[in-house]
């Protein structure tokens, strides 16, 4: 591939961002929408041209521009899907902010477009330091988005988000220096093949974990997330939940697992323990929330715990399941935040008790909300089911105890989501102003329909999403399976019986009577 499509995908939003900053006002909205749609179109071209079963790394570009690291881009199936998720959600975010953002529109739109550049860069970077730069640079636009356009307590939330994530990442940077000094290259594909000394792996793994665990976020490093989500504007929450949380999972699958397989196996139970606590604890916390956004934020922590469990189950099902949950959660939690945003725009409150009986006056809204609620619970036929099923199937092979507890979490997930839905959409119309709200408008249709379509597509025919990454997951699995932690599900194969179990003993010598 000669055409540098990945660079182009980053330049288009970058140009849009600069234009938005200059023009400002209403024109910025149009520019932002146009450039995100153009990027999405390029993303579709990327996916169509991606050769499934082809070379592991495709669309590679490399330019020796800087001292110390290279501008090297390239994607495999895992990156491809996460890039697609980012570019798919971005135009929807712009639409979601169309009317909601009225002050400093140019700066807002350009912050989002910068964010898009950085997200694509993070997933496409093939140089360790280039990855770090993109990964870390996302702090700047997100800090501004929360701080300038956020809710009442935005200053506290923005500081917490910034400092929490920064302290996690800096230790990873030190580990990266050590790795590059030892391996002699900062090329990610080469480093994925490099075998680090087992003792060193432990420290490196911990340093990377510090960063990714905060990003995912894993219990007990999750406390920044509810604050950031609640205070961020709707589109900020969508991007935060949809893509930024996936950076942590991507980090585990791209760095921790292939580069430090032994340490990953040693720490697998540590991860399981944190994840089990997260699934149960944050689900219970979500159950008692009065604020819709906070509830969905806590549900994100619970869902991401299933992701980490799947990742560290060290088998193909677990890894594929984790990837699918990440994609599905990106869509579903994004969509749920949009649903909150739709009614927040009308009533300017996120308090659950202020709503009720919305299915009467907003039937289409209630329909979409129901679909996404069900997808979040993991109803078969929606995207949530496929990922959770695979992930739990994967972990069941490693530990039935972890599978048991995580499945309990899924049941709790059904409880808090259905409870939320009942309070918002069903029951009596307690508040006159909530009862007077109009149904979703064309702009909101345009936000909901694409996500709903993909959620159903992923639920009914997940093969489209599994196919691009199958080979990459297989490579990863082959690389790490040797280090896999002991499983409690290894049954000893017995000798096969001669006949079927229900065959009746029959003595032919007795003859007929």
């Amino acid at each position, binding site marked *: 591939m000669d055409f540098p499509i990945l660079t182009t995908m980053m330049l288009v939003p970058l140009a849009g961002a600069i234009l938005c900053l200059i023009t400002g006002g209403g024109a910025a909205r149009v520019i932002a929408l146009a450039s995100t749609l153009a990027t999405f179109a390029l993303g579709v071209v990327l996916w169509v041209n991606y050769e499934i079963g082809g070379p592991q790394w495709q669309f590679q570009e490399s330019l020796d521009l*800087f*001292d110390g690291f290279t501008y090297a881009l390239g994607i495999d199936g895992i990156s491809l899907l996460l890039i697609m998720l980012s570019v798919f959600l971005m135009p929807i975010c712009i639409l979601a902010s169309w009317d909601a953002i009225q002050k400093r529109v140019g700066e807002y739109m350009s912050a989002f477009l910068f964010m898009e550049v950085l997200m694509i860069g993070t997933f496409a970077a093939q140089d360790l330091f280039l990855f770090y730069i993109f990964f*870390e640079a996302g702090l700047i636009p997100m800090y501004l988005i929360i*701080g*300038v356009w956020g809710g009442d307590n935005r200053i506290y939330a923005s500081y917490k988000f910034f400092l929490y994530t*920064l302290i996690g990442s800096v230790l990873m940077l030190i580990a990266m220096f050590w790795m590059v000094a030892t391996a002699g290259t900062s090329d990610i594909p080469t480093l994925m093949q490099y075998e680090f000394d087992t003792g060193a792996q432990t420290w490196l793994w911990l340093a990377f974990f510090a960063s990714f665990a905060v990003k995912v976020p894993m219990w007990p490093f999750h406390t920044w997330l509810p604050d950031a989500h609640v205070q961020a504007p709707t589109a900020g929450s969508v991007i935060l939940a949809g893509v930024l949380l996936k950076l942590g999972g991507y980090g585990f699958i791209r760095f921790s697992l292939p580069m430090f397989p032994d340490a990953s196996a040693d720490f697998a139970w540590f991860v399981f323990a944190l994840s089990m606590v997260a699934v149960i604890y944050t689900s219970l916390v979500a159950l008692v929330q009065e604020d819709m956004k906070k509830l969905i934020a806590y549900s994100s922590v619970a869902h991401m715990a299933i992701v980490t469990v799947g990742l560290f189950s060290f088998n193909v099902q677990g890894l594929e399941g984790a990837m699918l949950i990440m994609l599905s959660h990106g869509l579903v939690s994004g969509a749920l935040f949009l649903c909150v945003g739709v009614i927040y725009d009308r009533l300017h409150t996120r308090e659950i008790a202020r709503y009720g009986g919305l299915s009467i006056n907003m039937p289409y809204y209630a329909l979409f909300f129901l679909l996404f609620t069900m997808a979040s619970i993991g109803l078969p036929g929606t995207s949530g089911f496929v990922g959770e099923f695979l992930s739990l199937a994967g972990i069941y092979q490693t530990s039935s105890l972890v599978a048991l507890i995580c499945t309990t979490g899924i049941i709790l997930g059904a409880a808090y989501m259905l409870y939320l839905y009942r309070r918002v959409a069903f029951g009596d119309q307690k508040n006159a102003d909530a009862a007077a709200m109009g149904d979703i408008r064309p702009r909101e249709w345009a936000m909901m329909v694409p996500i709903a379509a993909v959620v159903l597509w992923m639920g009914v025919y997940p093969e489209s999403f599994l196919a691009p990454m199958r080979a990459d997951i297989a490579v990863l699995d082959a690389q790490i399976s040797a280090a896999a932690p002991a499983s409690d599900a290894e049954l000893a194969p017995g000798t096969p019986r001669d006949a079927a179990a229900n065959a009746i003993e029959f003595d032919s010598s007795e003859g007929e009577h």
Partner: protein
Amino acid sequence: MDFSASFLLVMPELVLTAAGLILLLAAAWGGDKAARGISIVASLVFFAVGLMLVPSLHTGVDGPDTLAFGGLLKIDTFALFAKALIYLAAIACLVVAPAFFNGPAAGEERGMRAEYPVLILFAALGMSIMVSANDFMTLYLGLELNSLASYVLASILRKDQRSAEAGLKYFVLGALASGILLYGMSLLYGFTGGTDFASVRAGLDGELSIGQLFGLIFVLSGLAFKIAAVPFHMWTPDVYEGAPTPVTMFFSTAPKVAAVALTARVVFEVFGGQVAAWQQIVMFTALASIVFGALGAIGQDNLKRLLAYSSINNIGFILLGLAVANAAGASAMLVYLFIYVVMSLGSFTALLMLRDEDGDLYETFADIRGLAVTRPVIAWMLLVQMFSLAGIPPLLGFYSKFVIFQATVEAGLVAFAAIAIAASVIGAFYYIKFIKVMFFDDAVDLVKGKSGSGHWVLLILTGVIVSPLGYLITGSLKDLTDKAAAALFVAV
């Protein structure tokens, strides 16, 4: 080496001396009305002198050919690099000065004085001598020339109490530090029998005696004062706050470069055989500067004071590169120094643009609330500088920390690097406070004063260098600093 070759080597210093003397006469005859003209001439002199450095900087020079006057001075690539940086910073400080002093409401006592550019010239001359010193005598000569000019610069607003206080404080504490340094030098002379770097180094061979160790520690303490490293940093916030802002900008750039370069030369060329003796001192100073610089800044409300603590914090990172004690560390240190100078110039220029209608400066956080709405360009440039100072990618400040930590980790000092980088997060807290105040708070719209075109040019230029575009120069910058650092380790 004959005398004429020596004169050729110190041509920049000769030009600066001549220009300084002539302009001093011009100042005496022309009075303060000639201040602007003298400033322009002085900037041109710096520019011309800077150009003289380019050819040898490009090819790189080291070894015996660089010694002038029988080894009193050493004009190698390292000295050239430091000098170029000093001259650039001096030009910037000359460019911003007239608009600051001659505001709309400036009277007799506020107006720009003709001595300002002359003092900058002499200070820069002193620094040139400092960075090329190869003998403790020349070192002290340069240091004092620079210091004396600086004391006067700090109190150049004679009628302003804070300026006078800053000058006095700087003088008293500076004299004390010079005394400490001189005492250390005399100890070294007594115990080694020489003042030139090579013979002191030879005299320090083998086990250090108590007297030699005291000499080493006194010299390092005196130098630590000049670069404002913890625990000799206490004068910095007061002097930075009290001195007129263009002078503060000067203090935080050019003399820092000179003192850091001098320290590097002393530790590598004089104490190069005794790394174990000074490495832990520098390590402690580096970590302490990072931590105290960051903690001290948190409670500050005055922007200049805050930037003073920020400069202490940055010195910590620069010393981190020095503590690595090899060429890679020295090279990283020079990269950091360059980027630090650019960031300092940028942020002080932005502070200089925060003026009311009368041209008086605003100096506290309360005055710049909501600046992003009222003066977006200044606010965005300040944002870029602050995130860069905090070391957040993709801004160039990240690259400066990147090279420092890379050198540290490659030298095996992993735990040291981990502590330092964790401490750097504390620093991020007050840098992002700038952003919070300018972008998140409601606008107060106090900043209404107009700024000179020189300010705008400098603001945008430093902003562009610090932006991701700056990464495009990293390749050639690293080549240059590698050459400069290598020159330090060439035995003569």
